[in-house]
């Protein structure tokens, strides 16, 4: 069962003026007693646009050090709280959009009521059921944004296009799975 650890970041994306980061937990989530891999990413291998971090400090340092770049960041609710609890002032003005994924339903509801930092930048809060689909969609839009920067580098340009096509194919498959899981009365079929 693939998850965040299985994402293979393509360093070509680090050349773009915008980057997509993912900040996740390796420890057991604060309220969970179960296994740590809460979010299943069946398509982890094609999420090459995502630069994954499991360390908040490293992630923040990179963002600080590259203040000429803009960042989109997807992070766990625990990491969001950790970021917020940090006494340092949050100075990262180059974080454009924030997406949060939650490990538990209680935390999901709490995040929906979130009034802390980055509230205006939070563009979505997700549970494990929709997070992978959202990452696929966000990836498509992110690649579309940075693609013009690689117009002269045909090889990279083609690779990025292929990545976007793979993401769209995975989305297509996702919708097909949804169709296949529907029985005639609208309820979901179990295997």
């Amino acid at each position: 069962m693939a998850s965040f650890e299985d994402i293979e970041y393509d360093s070509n994306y680090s050349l773009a003026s915008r980057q997509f980061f993912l900040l996740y937990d390796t420890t057991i989530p604060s309220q969970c007693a179960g296994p740590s891999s809460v979010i299943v990413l069946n398509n982890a291998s094609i999420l090459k646009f995502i630069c994954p971090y499991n360390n908040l400090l490293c992630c923040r340092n990179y963002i600080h050090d590259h203040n000429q770049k803009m960042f989109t960041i997807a992070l766990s609710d625990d990491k969001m709280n950790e970021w917020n609890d940090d006494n340092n002032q949050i100075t990262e003005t180059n974080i454009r959009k924030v997406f949060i994924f939650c490990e538990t339903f209680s935390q999901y509801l709490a995040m929906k009521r979130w009034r802390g930092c980055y509230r205006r930048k939070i563009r979505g809060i997700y549970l494990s059921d929709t997070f992978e689909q959202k990452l696929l969609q966000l990836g498509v839009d992110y690649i579309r944004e940075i693609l013009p920067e690689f117009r002269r580098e045909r090889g990279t340009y083609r690779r990025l296009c292929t990545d976007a096509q793979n993401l769209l194919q995975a989305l297509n498959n996702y919708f097909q799975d949804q169709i296949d899981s529907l029985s005639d009365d609208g309820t979901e079929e179990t295997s």
Partner: protein
Amino acid sequence: MGNRPGSFIDKLKNRIYRKHSISKSSQSNITTENTSLETFLLVWLDPNIDTSKENIRTQKRLRKILTCLLTFNKVDECRRWLEKCYNEEKIILIVSGAYGQEIVPKIHDLSCIVSIYVYCLDVERNKIWSKDFRKIRGVESSTNVLLEELENHQNHLENIEDSRALRICQQNEPAHSIENRTASLVWYRLLLEILIQPNYLPTKGTYHEFIHILRQYSSNDEDGSNLIDEFEQTYEPTRAVSWLTRDTPLIRFVNKALREQDINILFPLRFLLVDIYTQLTKNQAPSLNVFRLQLMPKTQIEDLRSNPGRLIIVNGFLFATTNKSQLLSTIQNNEQFETVLFDIQADFRSGTVPFAYLQQFDSYNEQQIEREILFMCGSIFEVGSLRYENSIWRLQLRLTSENDVPVLSQMKQNLRETKNLNIISDLLKKINQEDKARIFAERIANEQLTTAVTSNSQQIKSIQIQSNFNELLTNENILFVLINLSTYFNESTSAVLKILCSIEPRIISIVDNETTTIDLSQCMRRELTIFTTVQFANTIKKYSEDFQFFILDTDNQNNQKYRYSTIDDLINRLVDCIIEKYRFEISKALKTQNQTKVKDYNQQINRIYRQLKQIHFNHDSFLSNTHQTTLIWLRSADKNDNLDIEPVNQSFRDYFPMNLHFFQESELREYLAADNHQTDLFLIISSDYQMDTLVDLRQYSNIKYTYYYGEMKDKNSEYKILSTRDDLCYQLTYDLLEYYGNLGEQYRINNQAKQARQMFSKAQRLCQILSENYFSSK
């Protein structure tokens, strides 16, 4: 045949109907004092009413004209019953010759008696005595003639009832000093607003409630029951108008409820009103000059003559025709009432009721010349000139927009913004309609209660309740126990528990009224998670490490771990515990490489999350079968976007069946204010407009996506400006993909598989378009 014991008619005959429950299905405890769902009652008195085969056959035929037929075979019994009738009841009496001569002198002057037919063998002899009684409309020996006369008479009476239901009032009145007649227009239009438009009432469908009422009412009538069967089996929203135009008891029920503004029946009729409104709106006719013949009492004519410029509100549906000459050829003399030709100028604009040609629907019958055009109920007309020409009155009317009635538009705006339904009860009280105000308040309370009760009692019922905790300890399947918490459950927590129990019925148990002291140290079983109150937790003698406790402690000021101050937080913890249990199972399945189990458990988790999100956020719970999207352009005044419009509209024609263009913000706002919010809007705004405009327009709930399109004027803007057509098309495609994905999800949650598949398929097509058009490396 007679009056079947226990039937509505039997109860009516025995006068025990007066406090019957209107609907069990809706769990309503509202009572109605309606005598009948129809305006007129038919009473037949004959010594051989139930013994003659011919009479039984005639009863069956009579019920096709009026479902509510009461039969008597004794004069005294019938007379006593008639004398007990209320003044407002309207009774048509059929009586045999011999009985007629005996009963008519005694009951003729009762105000409930509208007309009398003598149905006898010896016509000539009975005509002699009957000529002294003006309410006797005919003495007939032929059944066919009697039925034909009755049918015509009933249509005639219905027309008169229509005129009685016309309300005349002032047009320009301030809200603070609204006069009674105007208030009666306003409350009724506001009632129709909350019945027809979504977002006011919590319950969705009233179809089953209405069927239940019909079945109660028609239980005495075989044909009526067959008709209800047919209605139940064939009714579809797209055929609502067809049912309205067929000559069935249904139309008589609808007409009566609307004319009399009968709140108790109008609420269950909500589904039909919504469907007819939708059909008429979709088939809106252009501006028309139409005509209608209306019988009116002389006093009403005088009222209209002395008050030009006033408004008329038609409570019910209004039929009219464009063929004046043909309509005039159908005029019949009437001594009691004046015939008035309504000459209506109907221009459709914002705030008018919708109207449509009936030929658009499969119900159109060319023979019914007076039924060519149908106006939605509650139409308002401005009264023009009234003059007498060629033996009839001619009244000029102009279809009026509610925006032309300041007090109405102001109060409607207030209702839309505040959703305060008490506005209607207040208006009813103001016009001394205390009873209607009470019924309205009860009905609204009942609507809200129904939702809560349904989600509480029905949902809790499906949860396994154990008699006591010790019994439960022997059941190894049970992993989660809720002790003495039921009294704290609210609508939301009950709904959550229902979902959990429907997905995993074996692992959760609820124990109530548990008072025994528990010694858990003696218990041999493992793995039990207990959710309970702080009071019960304090009674437990010894804890065991194998048992995990989560406690409802409303005074949990120190935020102690495992203690929750609200029942919602506690039940959400239960959700997390169940998800954790699945995750443990997934870990175990992974170790044995059982991929099927992994998939199953993941599906269970996803299913729980999806359904819980629906409870908490209730996104777009109202989904029609024909979900509509419209692309709106707010264009630049100099039309510099001319070249882009057609190609964009053409590219997205499969996704936006309708495109609307506005050149002024005010026009767009007017459209949005009048829009019934059943269409999802994608809005493209020219960058010539201020950014504030875009931000402001986003407040409308049915505007799903907005695009700022054109030349980039403010480089520091935090909003994305789409400067090329290619960018605009990409963004539309991308957003449509998200939109249809979400819509598919919503339909799936609502168990609408067909629609869900359609939406997911559309999303798939959009994936292909994006892949081919925007990421082709060539």
